[in-house]
């Protein structure tokens, strides 16, 4: 454990006590994940308010720049949701996204930030339950982590 992380833990206890809600950004592909999100909405399923959705045409559009910018700007977690592996509407866009997620995770780990703050989930457009499961899981994970501390000037 690095000293930075130790500082994080101390600070997070006061933050938690203040009850600050986490912020999560979700990048959802237009073909599957955003469609599943809309279906979830139409079914009036209740979800945590921590997650704000951003529509992209394909998860392959999401680059590490977007992921890290989200974290730098105030998100405690960011996730990407796209089509099932082998069923990306643009052939292998979701595989590119997976690569970038792994890259971002490795980068974060190397600077002492929990890699699970960045994740990817896959689902089909008809699979609203899966979308809900992913959203709740991400919310759970990030809520169990302290709010992300930033040292940016």
């Amino acid at each position, binding site marked *: 454990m690095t000293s930075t992380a130790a500082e994080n833990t101390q600070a997070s206890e006061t933050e938690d006590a203040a009850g600050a809600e986490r912020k999560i950004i979700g990048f959802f592909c237009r073909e599957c994940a955003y469609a599943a999100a*809309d279906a979830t909405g139409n079914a009036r399923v*209740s979800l945590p*308010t921590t997650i704000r959705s951003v529509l992209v045409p394909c998860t392959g*559009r999401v680059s590490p720049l977007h992921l890290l910018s989200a974290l730098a700007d*105030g998100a405690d977690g960011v996730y990407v949701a796209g089509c099932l592996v082998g069923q990306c509407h643009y052939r292998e866009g979701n595989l*590119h996204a997976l690569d970038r997620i792994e890259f971002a995770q490795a980068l974060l780990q190397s600077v002492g930030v929990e890699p699970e703050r960045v994740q990817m989930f896959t689902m089909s457009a008809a699979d609203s339950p899966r979308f809900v499961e992913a959203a709740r899981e991400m919310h759970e994970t990030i809520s169990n982590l302290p709010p992300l501390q930033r040292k940016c000037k």
Partner: protein
Amino acid sequence: MRCGVFLCECGGNISDVLDLDSLADSARGQDGVVSISRNQFMCGTEGRRMIEQAVEERGLDRIVIGACSRRFQGPTFERIARELRLGENAVAFGNLREGCSFIHRDQPDKAQLKAEKIVSAAVARARFQSDLPRGRTFLHRSALVVGGGIAGIAAAEELSGAGIDVHLVEREQSLGGYMARLSKTFPTEDCAMCSLAPQLTGAALDPRIHVRTLTDVTEISGPPGEFRVKLRQRPRFVSEACVGCDDCTPACPVSVSSEFDLGVAKRKAISRPFANAVPSLYAIDKRGSSPCKSACPAGTSAQGYVALVVEGRFDEAYRVASGPNPFPSVCGRICTHPCESACARAEVDQPLAIAALKRFVADRVGPETVLEKVPVIHSEKVAIIGAGPAGLSCARDLAKLGYQTTVFEALPVAGGMLKTGIPDYRLPKDVLGREIAQVTALGVELKLGQRAGKDFTIDGLLENGYSAAFLAVGLQKSSEVEIPGAELEGSERAVEFLRRLNLGKPVSVGDRVVVIGGGDVALDAARSSIRLQKTSGREPKVTLAYRRTREQMPALDEEVEQAIEEGLEIEFLVAPLEIVGKKGRVSALRLQRCKLGEPDSSGRRRPVPIEGDVTEIEADTVVFAIGQDMVCDFLEGCDGVSVEGGQIRIGRDTLMTGKAGVFAGGDAAATGGWTAIEAIAAGTRAARSIHNYLRDETLLQVWEPEAAQARPSAEELAGREVGRRIPITVLDRMERRGSWDEVVNGYSEEDAIAEASRCLACAVCSECEACVRACPAGAIELDQQETVEELAVGAIIVATGHKEFDARRKIPLGFGRFSNVVTQSQIARLLAPSGPTAGELERPSDGTVPKKIFMLQCVGSRDCTSSGNEHCSAICCLFSTLHASLIKQHYPDADITIGYTDLRAPGKAHEEYYRLVQERGVRYVRSRVGEVMEEPDKSLRVRFEDTVTGRKNEELFDLVVLAAGLEASAGTTEIAHVAGLQQGSAGFIKEYHPKLRPVDTQRPGIFVAGTAQGPKNIPDTIAQAKAAAARVVSMLSAGFVLTPAQIASSDLEQCIGCGICETVCPQGAVELSGGDSPHSIVDANSCRGCGICVAECPSGAMTLGGFSDEEILAEVMV
């Protein structure tokens, strides 16, 4: 930026959860926002007017919509922005409904905070959203319709009426699809073919509809309006000259299950599915080369003559068997039959006894057949050296081509190794003699006792009237033996030993014979020795000494088995060391015992001596059968022919030696595997090559082009009953010692036909050419090839139809096991007046009319198990009702029960029809079927529960009919892959929107109609087909279309020409230009706006319209 924010109440969906006034306040403060509006339904006319007004009055250049998901009403607002001349990318969206109010109804406070963020994000994003340029794509005024069933035909008709050129492509050999198979249609009981036939004729005659059958779509590329399509048309093997007289089908000997008749009848390899087929031509089902034909060096179509034997057409069978091979009687006895090793029947039980069948045909027909002599039409004469199988085959084929040939043979008899090598108990003298006589009867001149190099020279022949020569001298001497004692008296060489024997010269052996070797020559020497041995004195013994194991012996299994029956003993893993002599005669043989070591160059494990392990066995005769070499004296006076490695050197393609006009083949030239059939094949090839040489033109193919091998599928094999080969009988072993009578008996006619009936007809058409001879129009073209065509079309309609659920998956129902369990589609074929039973309902097991019938509904439909589909197949309730009605009218005594789950009759007049059929006496029982069991008399015992009364029943029925559900056809899945279309459950094509766009697919310009989209009846199919046609007409009527806005583009200044974008693009829409400073170019028509290239671009040159980094980051980092 002058941004207007428009908040929608969505009729309370949003405003019941979020406080829109408070939201408006928070938005008002944001930089760039100059106007806030609010409406109950922002997407309606009032909302639109509000936007128009605000844009005009407040000078807005950006619009932010806080409403439902942009996936829902996005296009509406984009269109408004476009019409207000702001450009559609001037709109940013905040998802306040599905993304907020709907999912946070229980947390309104937190939802409010989130909503503020959502709107701020949209405003921030809007600042970076700039106008996107759009180009124009020209639209081809033509369409491709994939699938020639009623949907495809109805769509084609409509398109043609609108002046659009239609390419109607169908993979079966005729248009018609599923509807052509039906008897009558519900609820009107109209005759299906009567309704369909005029449509078929219409499509055939319409000059704007271009029909292609036997055709698949293999590639679709390009943008809507300019699709580039690749079509592959399989060969029909029948030309347009076909007049449909049907003289061919009685001639064809191959019968297979008919796909058109859904398995209730058979068809021939050449067939036409129904009389009004479009086109009306017949077609041949030829799946390539059968394994037996591919394996035969001479390319004999074994499948061909076997099929003819089944029908008792022995003369035609003989013609097929002897076409490529003048020695069918001989080969039927002594061939190594590679065809049998390849026979696919081995995967069911045992390979066919192809050689024995050939022998049967040749023995039966051959001797009587007088071959037609072909007159000599060429002036050139050809000399053949050697009257063995290679030489005589070459001579025969040259004679048939019209050449005068002379065969020079050194021995006083013809036949080569067939004569001098193979003993009579395998190949009787008269059998070989007859077939040689048939060759000479064609006009081939045979000069015996003429040795090349001694009595004449080849150079001399070429100078004196012969234009070409074929050297077929074989390998006439045994290989050298170099062990001590090899020259003692009693030490023989197999080739010479057998030659003396077969030429009638005196040959004797002792009572302790040892034959060294493991091939067929060794076996011939051994079994001949058994017959030559005297039985007086002590018990004679013949031993075979082989240096490897039984499994590795090259001799034919049947030879070894028969030899062992005759008393042969075999010593394995022994190598000869020395022959021990006494008084100049052989007295014993010393052998080195070996074990198997590493594999040698032939791939077999080589024997390795075991140190010190030597044995000695008594022997008075030793015969060496360890190899053959060429006798080279024929080369005297033949300059230019070279020998390498003991064989004549030839060019593989032409079989010509280094000397022009001199060819070689058979054992002497290593053209094959040192067997008779290889020599025969070499002879026939050489004849073709010589013909090409003499005519100075490649008129004939010397080597057959490789054809794809056809083998039956695993499914076809699984359906076969396991049996065994009809046994070939042999002479009793007690009668064989000392006798030279033929050991192996031929088949009787009955056995031959029974054995031939086991053939699987792997290639279906066997190229027996019976149809060619039968066709009066000369329309058969067996060498047709497939053709590939490229088209450009503006739009595509997918109408590839459905297939029936495979009812075998419902194991307790017995379909596929019990002959009297059928499906409704099969009943349709049986009831069809033009069907296989002319409309009579015949029970499959015995052809009688069934009295008591049970019809089971929902087989494979409404099924939540893993062996069925969840959906309802829509038509089965009425389909069964229809057939029940038809049967009852035709057979008033019939007792029909329909076991249904629910009776669904939603269409027009369906309920009324259902009621009518009940009044006709058809019994409907709401039931759950447990099991169908077969009685010994093939009737069926059905166990079912009446779910209304709860009573369990068990009743006997004559026939059980399953209403098997609908699934997407195999063709639908294939076109989905080719066209990049999504499939839903059971493989049906996914429409763009199930309610609002039911005939569009996800791909613009590609539409779907008919049962490819989902189960439906005929009127609904036609309606959908016309709807898809209308979509095409409206799409193409503008003449051009705007290229999409949200596409990638490259900044030439930034682009470093790395080409990564080209590699990752799933559409192939990005190309790297050539030249000194390459840069990427995006094809605006093909780009589908995924953005993968943008994220991959290392220089930041790539951007995506509407999804640039600035836009995305603005939305994220608010």
